[in-house]
């Protein structure tokens, strides 16, 4: 199922909420948490990184990975953390409301 518009940024922010991670770590974390059910291409995620850097939600820095490869590590900014909190709550509310509507049973049932 394709991703809802605007949720990709939230997923990235969430992935970073425990600390800095590099690009592929973020991608694989999102894949494993969603059990592969979200169709996100790698290119889309990379573009999202740039977009979010532009909006000052995350910052990036090159560093060595555990198996000694150069990788770009992303980290939440204060604005990113606040964004995650606010937009995450809003999205959950939204989903909750959708669920109530979509799971409603007919009065006869």
């Amino acid at each position, binding site marked *: 199922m394709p991703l809802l518009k605007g949720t990709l940024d939230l997923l990235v922010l969430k992935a970073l909420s425990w600390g800095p991670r590099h690009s592929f770590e973020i991608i694989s974390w999102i894949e494993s948490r969603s059990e592969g059910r979200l169709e996100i291409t790698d290119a*889309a995620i990379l573009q999202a990184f740039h*977009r979010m850097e532009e909006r000052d939600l995350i910052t990036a820095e090159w560093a060595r990975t555990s198996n000694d490869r150069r990788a*770009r590590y992303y980290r939440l900014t204060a604005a990113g953390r606040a964004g995650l909190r606010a937009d995450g709550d809003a999205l959950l509310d939204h989903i909750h409301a959708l669920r109530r509507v979509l799971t409603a049973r007919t009065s006869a049932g």
Partner: protein
Amino acid sequence: MRRRRARALAEAVAELDAVVEGRVEYLLARGWTPADARAEALRRLGMPLENARYELYQSVRRRERTMQLRELLNDAWDDTRYAIRGLTRRPGFTAVAVLTLAVGIGATTAIFSAVDTIVWRPLPFPEPERLMKVSLIAPQRGRMARNDNMPFSYLKYLAFRDAQTVFERLALFSPTSFNVTEDNTERISGEHVSAAYFATLGVTMARGSAFAPEEDAHPDAPKQVILADGYWKRHYGGDPKVVGRNISFDCNPYQIVGIAAQGFRGLSGGADVFVPITTLSAHTLSFAQSHNYSLVARRKGAVSREQAAAAVQSLGVHVGEVYPDRAPAAEPWSAIARQLDETRAAPLVKRALFVLMAAVALVLVIACVNIANLLIGRAELRRREVALRVALGAGRGRLARLFLTESLLLALAGGAAGVLVAWGGVTLLSRIDPGNALRASARAGMIGAVGFSSIHLDGVALGFALALTALAGLGFGLTPSLHARGRSLPGALRGGLRATDAGSRRLSGRRVLIVTEVALALVLLAGSGLMTRSLLKLLEVDPGFNASGVMAFRIAVPASLTRDRGAGDTRSALPEVYATLVERIRAIPGVTAAAFADCVPVSGGCNGTRIEFLDRPKVSDPSQLPGVGVHWVTPDWFAAMGVPLLRGRRFTDADRQGAPNVVVVSERAAKDFWPDEDPIGKRVALGQGDLEGGAEVIGVVGNVRAVIDEAAKPEVYLSYYQSEQPAAAGFVRTSNDPLLALGPVRQAVHEVLPAAPVFDPQRMSARLTASMARPRFAAGLLALFAAIALGLAVMGIYGVMSFAVSQRTHEIGIRMALGADRSVVLRSVLGEGISLALLGVLIGLAGALAAARGVRALLFNVGPFDPVTYAGMVAVLTAAAIAACWFPARRATRVDPMDAIRAE
């Protein structure tokens, strides 16, 4: 910038590769074959590798652009905050700098407003560049000088109008005044205009309509009048129903047909009413050599300035042929068309304004130099902080930006305060009597359509102030940044503000500024000195009469009282009228003398004619006769005005109609016309006053100046009791303030001449002052600017010398510890300051002498290279410079050697 972006793009590609590699490794770890793993990794990319690269290029480029902008803004904001903190931490410095700038920018903006209004701004008419003023050129005829600004006569205008093809519309106007004879008689200004006047200028009617074109053709139509908007509001409370009603001038009804658009007061600049020229008597209009009317014309759109000028020249010749002048002339009459815009300010007024503009610009430059000086001084004190910042990695560009931000902020504050100063200045300027100070004089044939009172701060002036602010901020902001260059980092960090070679070299930049400042100040002082001396000379001029305790007023004697020559009247009723008026006014308690004369001294606009000497051979060409000013007076006028009798006798009441004709001449006339003879008893004939037949000279009186800054001309006086003259001004001398007598005088005049209003009452002392309004205005403002410049220069010298002393505290301490005398220290500090000042004076002197040519035209009885002025101003400036050095020098002598050495 570019390199940073290239790196970002490379990194984006590297990141892409890293992600692909990351996935390949991940899949390999799960048992995929390398080929399958790579294919899967590329598939998960979601698009071909090339496309992904391209997309990432785009997003990175966008990101970089935004982030760079954000950094720039952040830096600017940081700089601003830093600058504000720095400026508020030193309120004294900031206040001095802001005030200095405020004065500079404010004064410059105020003068700019005046120049803009009077000289630069387009005239307030549609397509003003098509408006031209056409004048006749009268060639030199005998003793009559060539006049290239001769107004038209009505007949010549008609001839010109009917022959011309280059103008769309053209119209005559002539300033005049009317006696409004309603409930209260009142004298108002107006213009006689031809019907197309409003259409030519493009002035619309707020109410009613303009004069119908037929007015030009039908002189017998009912008399009409158009009111100026201001007069309509003042006298009719803006009542719209007034159109169609009548207003009475000199007891004749005029029908109000329209109200002119708001603000329009005619090209003369002060008209309350407009009356068709055709209301003048047919006799007046039919005299071809009666050159009384200015011609304004609107060019056809397709006709260029040059084409119009060429056409007008030949039209002028044509008009001269249609109405030939009797006097023989070397060349034919002609005409000239000037842009209306160029004729709006008298050359001297323009010159005065430009001189003031230049002066005030110099003040602004000095103000900026001073602030640059202050900023450099500050930068010196912040040397350590700057060094620290450099050490911490701040680039030179960043530092320069920091300083620039500070100075721009300072300039902005100064500019804002300057607008307040400008507003005050403009308010003051517009209060100065516009008629006398700056409006073009009617004498010079100029128009006064844009009076000084319309000066106000508008968008243009505010834009000008803003531009000045930015320029000033950049100007004095870049100086310290440049100054901050080439500084050795370790030396600065080591810290002592000790006088070193480097230290004194740094001071040399400020020395240059001091010399500049002193030089500019001297230019201003010299200019102002010349103007002030010129004004003083003007004040010394003996006007030829005793002004104190005298009031002069004008009355308009109704034309109906003059004798009707056509009806064969031989005796005039006017002598009786004047005698009665004098008698009534003298009877007023407190009045010690009363008299009439047709022309008020020092107010210009007197009458002149030719004089012929009957005991000398007849001159065949009348234009070869000398000119002479003609004045009518009542017999007591000389005594009332304190004009001394030098020879012979004054008029008496017995010199009346029927008695032998007599005249009194001025000292100048006696010397010019009878250099080696006694004029008493000589017989002369005059072109006016019915004295063509001759009159006997009975007395010589002192010279009275008609125009204060023009040498006395030969004058001849006639008695009102013997020669008819309706034009009259009354002179009343009282023992106290003469204006107190105005009420009773009005009453007395009203009883004798009910329809003749008393107007323009003024003390003669006030008229004397007003006659010098322009020189006073220019000299006063210039003196103010020079004083400001002097003050700023003194401040600058004081600042630099104080700083130099504080830098040398250590050195002075050592010298004094080694036994140097205090006077030696004093001399060394004073000597340095004075040598700087003298260098500035020297350069300034050269500048002042070069600039003096600019004010030459404005000077009265003072040469542009007047040595007294220059010596005086050099002395003033040098003395001020010494005073400014004295206090820092004194402080230097009080240095305690032990403290100075220990302070390190």
